[in-house]
Each structure stands twice: as structure tokens, then as C-alpha cells.
């Protein structure tokens, strides 16, 4: 099969469950709506392009080209395609796949039924376990300096919490208190609190085998609010992929759905999750 041939994906998906590319250990998650809609029975294997097999053949070339452009540029991919349902029929969906982090092949995607507002969005998360950190840390530093140069925060909060279960509620309460006076809509606040709560959970539950700390940093700028959760541990490997044991995938999907501008930088020194909400001027 040619790697640049989108038509190859149907036969590949049908006959060969093994993924075409596997970048080491990875977090791969699809929500229950995805499995219910597609009838996809293979919960284990997932490639970056797994969804192409469910796109109508006439839409596949256009979607493939747009996806390749977005993927190489690390930009958000949006495309309307017909997606195959378990019964073989096709329904128009808006696909949206956003990068997790500027330097990694890590993505969070969703598909919305264009003709049924009540249909649950189909979601997926693909986050490779990372090995090369120097580039990422440099990029993270560059990101930070751009923010510092262009903007000065109006208000700033930085607080350290022990990585223990009771801290999750304390982190949420501290952030809610800090943002209470910020010019941020109720809807944005709900989504931000949800996303930060999940990021805090990950840091508390997965970063440390023994004691450790979690830092909450929040900054309100004239045109944006940025919230970061930082830990200094290393996320422990996932256990078996049964539904109960994969809250982390579900949490990542929720984080990406709640606040699409999310970046995750991971290194042996720790994990840095950054959420940004922009306000129209």
C-alpha cells in the first residue's frame, strides 16, 4: 500500500487490524459514540488516519489532502465529509481534528452530525508517548517568551499543591476564586474549569509514584486567559484498555472538547498542560 493513497485505507482497515504506524506506546481513545455510530469493534488499534476508512470514497481524496496539509502545518483540520454508519449508510459530519502540542504527532478529533443536533459528537484522542524532549522544551520556552513579550498579565495566580486526591477540589476552588472577577463568560468558565479539573486529575493520579507537587498558574490578559497545570513527574503507563481503566483517555477527550486551544508538553522533567481562551476584542 502506498502511504499517500487514501483509497488504500478501506482495504487496510477491513483486512488488517494492525495499525500502519505505531509511535511507541500511546494514548488512544475513542468515545462510546464513535463505536456506536461506526460499529467499529477494534478498540485496541488506532492509527493517526484511522477515521479515513469511514469516510465516503468520493470525499476521501479531498479530506486526505486537507488533513495532510493540516497535519504537516500542525493546524486545526476541519472538513465536511460523509461518514459511514454501522448499517452502511452515510451521514454528513463536520470533522475537526486539532493538534495537542506544536511539536508532537498528537491529536484530538471530533465529528458532529450536520443534520442531527442531538446526536452525540464522535470523539477521539491520539497522543503518542514521547521520547525526544530537547526540541519540545525549546519550543515550550519559545512559546512562553512570545507570550511574555506580547502581553503583560492583568492578574496572575500561581499556587503549589501536594499531588494528592484532596488537592483536586482545592485547585478547582482556587481557580474559580481567581477567575470570579475576570472578564470571562459563564460558558467559557464552565469549559475552562472542566478542562483544568481533568488536567489536575492527571497530574495528581499519574505523575508520581510517591509524593510530589502540582502547580496551578493562571493569567488574565487583555484579550486572553491562560491556565497551566504543571507537574514534575512522569505519567505512569496506562493499564489494560477496558473502559473502567481508561479514565485518562476520557479525560483527555473532555479537555480537548472543552478547550480546543490546549497544549501538552511532556518531558522527563515533568508535564506542562496549557489552556488558552481568547476573547474577541
Amino acid at each position, binding site marked *: 500500500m502506498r502511504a499517500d493513497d487514501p483509497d488504500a485505507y478501506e482495504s487496510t482497515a477491513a483486512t488488517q487490524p494492525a495499525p500502519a504506524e505505531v509511535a511507541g506506546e500511546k494514548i488512544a481513545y475513542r*468515545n*462510546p*459514540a464513535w463505536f*456506536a455510530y461506526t460499529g467499529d469493534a477494534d478498540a485496541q488499534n488506532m492509527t493517526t488516519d484511522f477515521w479515513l476508512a469511514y469516510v465516503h470514497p468520493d470525499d476521501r481524496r479531498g479530506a486526505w489532502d486537507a488533513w495532510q496539509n493540516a497535519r504537516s502545518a500542525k493546524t486545526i483540520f476541519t472538513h465536511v465529509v460523509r461518514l459511514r454508519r454501522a448499517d452502511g449508510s452515510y451521514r454528513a459530519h463536520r470533522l475537526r481534528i486539532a493538534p495537542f502540542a506544536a511539536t508532537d504527532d498528537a491529536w484530538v478529533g471530533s465529528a458532529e452530525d450536520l443534520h442531527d443536533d442531538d446526536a*452525540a*459528537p*464522535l*470523539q477521539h484522542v491520539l497522543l503518542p508517548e514521547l521520547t525526544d524532549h530537547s526540541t519540545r522544551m525549546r519550543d515550550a520556552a519559545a512559546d512562553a517568551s512570545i507570550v511574555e513579550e506580547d502581553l503583560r498579565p492583568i492578574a496572575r495566580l500561581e499556587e503549589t499543591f501536594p499531588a494528592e*486526591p*484532596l488537592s*483536586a*477540589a482545592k485547585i*478547582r476552588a482556587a481557580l474559580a476564586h481567581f477567575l470570579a472577577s475576570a472578564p470571562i463568560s459563564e460558558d467559557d468558565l*464552565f469549559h475552562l474549569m*472542566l478542562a483544568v*479539573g*481533568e488536567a489536575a*486529575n492527571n497530574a*495528581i*493520579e499519574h505523575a508520581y509514584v510517591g509524593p510530589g507537587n502540582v502547580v496551578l498558574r493562571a493569567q488574565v490578559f487583555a484579550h486572553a486567559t491562560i491556565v497551566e497545570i504543571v507537574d514534575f513527574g512522569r505519567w505512569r503507563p496506562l493499564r489494560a484498555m477496558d*473502559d*473502567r481503566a*481508561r*479514565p485518562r483517555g*476520557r*479525560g483527555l*477527550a*473532555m479537555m480537548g*472538547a*472543552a478547550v480546543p486551544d490546549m497544549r501538552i508538553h511532556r518531558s522527563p522533567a515533568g508535564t506542562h498542560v496549557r489552556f488558552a481562551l481568547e476573547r474577541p476584542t
Partner: protein
Amino acid sequence: MTDPRLLTLSGELDVATRQSLRGAFAALAEVDEAIIDLRDVRYVDSASLAEFAWLADRFRKREARVVWIILPGSHVERVLQISGLVQTMAIVATPEAARAHFAA
């Protein structure tokens, strides 16, 4: 005919309450009819949602029935919408509607 078992949850369901939530749900694992009142729950995280999904699935597989009382527009309802779980749960807004669900 006995009444459905009622479980009322309140406060913030997160990593600190997960084990007790799991225990409360395990106690319902063999019940035929259950009502779970979430009207006083102010926050729910994704891991607690995974427990909701587990319980809903467990009841479905046994052909038992569980109804969830959730206020429209509440935090819980919005989180269930985002996660897509709302599609797989029987949700009502009031205790009266929950009882009517079983009387039907």
C-alpha cells in the same frame, strides 16, 4: 413489588470520592430497579463519569433498569452532553418522573 432503590449523591465527585462512589455503585450491582439522584452534585470528573458508564452498562446487561435524576442545564447535565454519555442513560428531571418511569 418493592420500590426502586434510591441512591442520592451530593457535592463534588472527583478523584477524592472515586472509591466511595465505586463502593456505592457496587452495592447496586444486583438491584433490579434503581434511582440515582444527582441533583445536589455540583461537579463530576471524567473518572466518575466512567463509573456512571460502568453502572449503566451493568444494568443494561442484566436487563435491569436505572434512572438518573439530573437538573436540566446543571453542571452534571452539561458534562454528560460533552462526553456523549447522555445518549446511553435514562435521565429525568424530578423524583416524580423517576417513579413514573418505573410505574409505566
